[in-house]
């Protein structure tokens, strides 16, 4: 997939502008706080429907603007498409159109366009709470598989409904539709767990080879899936009283966890800063491969500040690897991080005060 152009309006500190992009490395260069990451964020938000930073939509709106509007033309296997994403601050409403057709839900955009992002915050993927890893799983598998999107959506609805029933029961009221909702909860939940188990195994393999490719080291990367329940139907029937007492569902994919190991040691507690960054980057590159294999579409690759903490040898290793992708968006503090031959083949944009200018 290629993003051919991007028009931003009212987004973060960015001034209204239209940029056109080519294949290969697309590099945003500039000092801090000028808008490099905001441009990457605009690209990601346009393609995936939400920011990769954990923020409310209203924060993305430029000061004084009533909302933001992102649009762009995307070239993909299934043909060119024009995506328009609009956020209205007053209505707190986000709408997205593909080729002038409004989509019913933002999540439907995942079926149309794909992107994988790596940012400094991704160390949270290794060191952060389980929720970060579950969000990663859902976003990644949701882009890889429409069946997963469907099952996850239905599971989440069934979970909310079931919790509402459990709360009702905990107040001593009765509710005869519990069993029928539970059946949906179990079936869709089990489907989510099965697909996670299958795909995480492949992800782990790919992450292991990506870790070596980026020159991080020869430690073995192991990712283990830890579902909160091996048998959802059995576990909820055994702990019904406890669940009613607490008024919430204590088992299910909404409580699953991933364990990540480097050479047998759990990375969450033991990996160094450099290892953590390399590890999260390797997982993102593995995600890219997997989404491509599952959908036949090569996602956009977006890397925020990925080079600055690497030594020169690893920078070159990573840049060579990135040059092999159809289109990669990269932010750099200075062009000196872009040695020859990359500086001559990449398209470089200088970013200053919210505006990007293509270098001649």
């Amino acid at each position, binding site marked *: 997939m290629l993003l051919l152009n991007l028009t931003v309006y009212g987004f973060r500190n960015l001034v209204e502008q239209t940029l056109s992009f080519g294949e290969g490395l697309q590099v945003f260069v500039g000092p801090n706080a000028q808008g490099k990451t905001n441009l990457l964020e605009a690209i990601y938000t346009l393609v995936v429907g939400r920011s990769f930073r954990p923020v409310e939509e209203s924060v993305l709106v430029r000061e004084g603007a009533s909302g933001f509007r992102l649009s762009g033309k995307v070239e993909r296997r299934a043909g060119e498409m024009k995506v328009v994403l609009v956020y209205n601050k007053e*209505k707190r409403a986000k709408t997205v159109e593909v080729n002038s057709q409004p989509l019913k839900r933002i999540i439907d955009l995942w*079926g149309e366009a794909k992107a994988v992002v790596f940012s400094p915050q991704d160390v949270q993927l290794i060191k952060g709470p389980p929720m970060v890893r579950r969000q990663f799983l859902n976003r990644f598998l949701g882009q890889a*598989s*429409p*069946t997963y*999107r*469907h099952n996850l*959506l*239905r599971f989440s*609805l*069934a979970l*909310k*409904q*079931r919790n*509402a*029933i459990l709360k*009702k029961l905990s107040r001593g009221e009765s*509710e*005869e*539709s519990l069993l*029928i*909702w539970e*059946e*949906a909860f179990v079936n869709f939940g089990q489907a989510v767990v099965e697909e996670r188990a299958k795909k995480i195994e492949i992800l782990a393999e790919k992450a292991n080879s990506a870790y070596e490719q980026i020159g991080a080291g020869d430690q073995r990367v192991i990712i283990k899936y830890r579902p909160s329940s091996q048998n959802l139907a059995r576990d909820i029937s055994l702990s019904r009283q406890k669940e009613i007492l607490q008024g919430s569902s204590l088992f299910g994919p909404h409580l699953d966890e991933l364990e990540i190991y480097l050479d047998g040691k759990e990375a969450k507690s033991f990996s160094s800063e450099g290892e953590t960054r390399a590890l999260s980057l390797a997982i993102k590159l593995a995600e890219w491969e997997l989404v491509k294999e599952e959908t036949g579409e090569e996602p956009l690759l977006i890397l925020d500040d990925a080079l600055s903490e690497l030594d020169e040898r690893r920078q070159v290793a990573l840049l060579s690897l990135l040059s092999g992708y159809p289109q990669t968006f990269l932010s750099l503090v200075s062009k000196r991080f872009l040695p020859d031959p990359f500086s001559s083949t990449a398209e470089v944009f200088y970013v200053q005060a919210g505006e990007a200018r293509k270098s001649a």
Partner: protein
Amino acid sequence: MPYSSPSLTKLIEALRKLPGIGPKSAERIAFYILKSPPQESEALVSAIMEARWNVKACSICFFLADTDPCPICQDKARDQETICVVEDSRDVIAMERAGAYKGLYHVLGGALSPLDGIGPGDLRISELFERVRQGKIKEVILATNPTMTGDITAAHLAQQLKVMGVKVTRIAHGLPVGTELELADEVTLNLALQGRREM
């Protein structure tokens, strides 16, 4: 709101309560009403009042109509042995517009959603079971929406209807007419396959 006329403010506030009408639309409609001839306003008011007094839910199927029972329930030419269960009166109108169904209806008045406080007791489910128990009905077609709550409601009804010895069917979901297979998404295709029939 900074309007000079309290009557205008009242009108706008009343319009704002309607579904899908925000403050701007309410304002636009109010000004349109004020600009158009008074007869039009009178016609609108009487249309609203007339509908309000005359339209009521049919005591058999709960479809909205001017008469009770509704024209559909009164029509003896329709198949009296089949009931099509829908969530809303608007679904009856859609089915009737399509014109292919000649049986009776039953409007549930929504779908099961504990989250919104809607349990089986809040829908016209016992009324449906009562109609089936009277013995004339041979088939119940479950035509609730293919959403999570619609599917669950259908599953709930099916479970109980089956023990009453009546044939229970669910309307098919699948490919929209005119769609090419390669353009259909995986989920829809899978559903279409699950619901395939012999030819």
